[in-house]
């Protein structure tokens, strides 16, 4: 889910850049010095996750897990997703530098929204955590696809079909992401609940 260079119009690019700038500013303010290594190394783990391909029917998709990033990191999802996309743009030329603002906002904002909506469910029983994980994992990807769609349609009406296809393609992926996020949350809750509450447990 990256919009490439050269597609979007200047107003869309600027709007994305401004919103991402604000998000990163809030995110950085939320990261104390003692949180720096955790945000950084958890981001490395999510970067590695994006290299993992999961089969979906005859095709496969790589993990995005932006919902999980958001529900774990909160506003710190903005800097976390930003550096991942920056690195992908510089190393692999996925997405792009000029579209960094739009792409970061499209992935990180849903992550933050899901943080506020579903995070509390993790702290309850196993079933609620499972449900929260599923909803957060799948919704964050659907909202992200919607944001990407809006950015495309804002640029040019004729991109409507592209936007619709992006959304349709992401529906099954969102389902799988939801299932995986739910299992991750339950596993963490059972094995190492500190990870879900990383901010409180720093030494």
């Amino acid at each position, binding site marked *: 889910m990256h919009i490439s260079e*050269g597609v979007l119009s200047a107003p869309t690019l600027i709007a994305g850049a401004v919103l991402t700038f604000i998000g990163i500013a809030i995110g950085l303010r939320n990261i104390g010095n003692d949180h720096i290594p955790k945000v950084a190394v*958890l981001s490395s*783990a999510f970067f590695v996750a994006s290299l993992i391909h999961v089969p979906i029917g005859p095709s496969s998709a790589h993990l995005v897990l932006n919902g999980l990033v958001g529900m774990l990191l909160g506003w710190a999802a903005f800097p976390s997703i930003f550096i*991942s996309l920056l*690195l992908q743009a510089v190393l692999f*030329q996925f997405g792009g530098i000029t579209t960094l603002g739009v792409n970061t906002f499209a992935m990180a904002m849903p992550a933050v929204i899901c943080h506020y909506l579903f995070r509390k469910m993790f702290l309850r029983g196993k079933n609620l955590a499972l449900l929260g994980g599923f909803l957060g994992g799948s919704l964050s990807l659907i909202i992200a696809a919607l944001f990407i769609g809006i950015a495309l349609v804002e640029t040019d009406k004729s991109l409507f079909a592209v936007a619709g296809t992006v959304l349709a393609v992401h529906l099954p992926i969102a389902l799988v992401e939801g299932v*995986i996020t739910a299992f991750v949350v339950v596993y963490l809750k059972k094995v190492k609940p500190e990870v879900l509450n990383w901010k409180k447990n720093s030494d």
Partner: protein
Amino acid sequence: MHLEVFSEGSSPIHRLDPRVKIIVFTIFSILCATSTGLKTPFLYLSYSICLILLARVKLRPFLSRLFLANFFILFIWIFIPLFYSGNTHYSIGPLKISKEGVMYALSITLKCNGIIIATIALLSTSTVFSLAHALSHLKVPIKLITIFFLFYRYITVIHLEYLKIKRAVLTRGFIARTNLHTYRTFAYIMAGLLIKSYERAEEIYRAMLCRGFKGYFPLFEHFKIRKSDIIFFIVANSISIYFWI
């Protein structure tokens, strides 16, 4: 994991100051992305090709990158000519293809490839760490750069952990299919990675505290701007701006 494929080399572009390259690239990409029509994007594309020839990057990885990056563009070619509202149409059976739509798709293709080639020529020819270092001189918040530094440093480590878990899973006869068991397995692999990274981060932080960490890393090496950097800075930016006007 060998990630920085294009950063090795001794071309004139490789030797430029990363700060200069970042500024030149930023101006180039903003102007190229906001250009319209066919002529200006074409000029930018030609310009980026000149840069990549100067940088003398390895041809095969370069072409495969370009090929992959054009996938999204292919997508656009499938849809835009059919849905763009223009006056002139070519008809192929029931399908109507708008001429303006084709022009628009072509313009996007030129711009996209121009910026991607410039990214490889200007950014990928520096190591990621020297780019991060350069960004710290360009007033990017030091906290963001510190996070980026550790993030990049530990990708290889976490990737090795992933390979280790994957090997363990494969020796137990795991085959990835479209079913709940597969997704549960991937979820547990991911959760395992998160736990390992969490514990690693705690160790890193303790080690950093022992060394007197105060929120940033002091820099050991420094950039020196040379005459060739200044000349490149002026010439390259003039060309970018000239094309735009």
